[in-house]
């Protein structure tokens, strides 16, 4: 019966976010853990008159592992791709080639049935899109950013020459792709130049950490995290960093401004990364945002309502956009 509740979200994804048209080839890539979500999407795609294919693959063993070649081949022939999967295939050659071949893609890593029912999915994505694009443009035009918070964050970043990425959740034109439902404007700061302190107090929706019980303080010197302090979850995080034995995992990779008014902080990655007025700092790889660092992983730490200044001008404060 839960399927019934998911249909409204599925309809929105077809009609609003991807603008599926009758006769289009819709490919839904999933794994055995996520088939109920895939099924809701397939039902709606079929109802829209699309030529619907559901591809079920074994769950990937790690994030960014390529899907099987058969799935990769199918992706190149699709008009629209949805990926409700347990491990991310967002940053894979298969997805990049599918999008390059003209597909519109909505990536849905670690999605849940509940995310299709309420929360971020309820946003007016089309209305939010120009706001997201505007913030991305401001990031792109800025030379420097300073992020501060009552919790103790004070981080400066050099944004000179970097491109802003608006992730609008809207993929209604060939070659567009976006995760769902985290509306965000993101940019990759210049490597080895960020300085200061990050106090993450909302969520680290990776590695089973989730909502934070107490804040974690990360010291940043020369663009790298040099110290991690806090409670039990900070210790877990420390182990995550040490495991791959890769110095690049400490890289300050991304500044992301979260812009979905309907997202709630709940410990689920794509939902937490959208909560309006919050900011996340991405750590590790930054190649998908135009940077040069390839690390063993990329993940985000999220903070509640910090203040963001771009070239001295306040853009975001107390959960409010000032643009």
């Amino acid at each position, binding site marked *: 019966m839960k399927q019934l509740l998911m249909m409204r979200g599925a309809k929105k994804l077809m009609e609003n976010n991807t603008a599926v048209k009758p006769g289009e*080839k819709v*490919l839904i890539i999933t794994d055995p853990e996520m088939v109920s979500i895939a099924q809701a999407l*397939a039902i709606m795609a*079929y109802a829209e008159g699309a*030529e*619907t*294919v*559901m*591809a*079920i*693959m*074994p769950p990937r063993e790690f994030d960014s592992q390529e899907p*099987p*070649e*058969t*799935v*990769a*081949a*199918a*992706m*190149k*022939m*699709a008009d629209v791709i949805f990926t409700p999967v347990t491990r991310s295939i967002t940053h894979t050659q298969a997805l990049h080639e599918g999008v390059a071949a003209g597909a519109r893609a909505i990536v849905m890593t670690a999605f849940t049935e509940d995310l299709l029912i309420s929360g971020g999915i309820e946003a007016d994505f089309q209305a939010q899109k120009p706001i997201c694009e505007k913030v991305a443009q401001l990031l792109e035009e800025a030379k420097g950013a300073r992020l501060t918070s009552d919790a103790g964050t004070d981080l400066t970043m050099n944004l000179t020459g970097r491109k802003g990425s608006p992730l609008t959740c809207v993929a209604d034109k060939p070659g567009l792709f976006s995760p769902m439902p985290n509306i965000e404007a993101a940019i990759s700061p210049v490597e080895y130049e960020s300085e200061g302190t990050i106090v993450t107090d909302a969520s680290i929706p990776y590695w089973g950490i989730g909502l934070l019980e107490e804040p974690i303080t990360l010291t940043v010197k020369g663009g790298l995290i040099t110290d991690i302090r806090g409670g039990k979850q900070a210790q877990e995080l420390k182990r995550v960093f040490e495991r791959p034995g890769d110095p690049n995992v400490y890289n300050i990779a991304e500044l992301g401004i979260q812009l979905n008014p309907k997202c709630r902080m709940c410990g689920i990655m794509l939902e937490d990364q959208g909560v309006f007025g919050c900011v996340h700092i991405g750590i590790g790889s930054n190649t998908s945002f135009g940077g040069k660092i390839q690390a063993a992983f990329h993940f985000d730490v999220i903070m509640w309502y910090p203040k963001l200044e771009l070239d001295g001008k306040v853009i975001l404060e107390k959960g409010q956009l000032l643009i």
Partner: protein
Amino acid sequence: MMSTDFKQILMFPGARKLVDVCAAVQQGEKVLIVTDVERISVAKSIASACVARGAEVVVMIMTPRKVHGIEPPAPIVAAMSAADVVFEPTSKSIAHTAATQGAREKGARVITLAEITEEMLISGAIEADFEAQKQTTERVMEALSQASKARVYSDAGTEIEMSLEGRRGRALTGLACERGSYSSPPNIEASIAPVEGTANGVVIVDASISGIGLISNPVRIKVQEGVARAIEGGEEARKLRQMLKSANNPYAYYIAELGIGLNPKASLKGSLLEDEAVLGTVHIALGSNADFGGTIRAGLHVDSIIWKPTLELDGKVILEEGELRI
């Protein structure tokens, strides 16, 4: 839903035979299962057997094609060409599509399973020893290939002759173990496309007709110069006339195939994949035969199964009232 899930237990040995024996799937191979919403439980069973085998298996589900022979959606066509092995448990056959042909040309081993049911994985023809039956099938195929004339007759009244001159038989062994090969287990048969325009006589169909099912009123097909001129009988004859008419193609009435069922575990069930395989039956098909050595493209292919007749090749009895003499 529940009952279907538990049936998976009973279906698994059959699925494992398809995977381990019929397709000889190897560890790490890329297996693609193309299915439609009417055949998901069978697809799931085959997928389970592939996982047990250590293959990398992907299941692609489409909506059922409207009739046999329609191409699958383009993303599936592309996926088929990237696979080592393709299983096709579908409600409508995609065996005779450019997609299947293309996948075979790229080296895929294809197992087509159109109209397969859960029951067909559980018992019956699937229990055959496919490898043991392979030699027999190839012997019958060779006999067909070497013969210039075939005669089929039965006590029920079948009496038909046709030329096989210059035609090569095919052995459908249920096995697809070599690159680019193709099979349709649990069907095992040896068959041939007779020379068009040469069949003359009467066929009494008393077992089964594809797309119609088991026969209670035998259907009498009068054949002159390779073409079915009259189809008489009861309800089933009416259905057959209608089916051929709806093809809207004069070639639909041409004699296309002479086949001998060679699966000792198959029994008549009203499902083509199993019925045409019943050991000692002979089937005569109307319509297309271009994909196995003939020249007819009719947009349809209808198999009519005759219960245990006698088959003579160049005057030599190969099958005597359903008993193989070879």
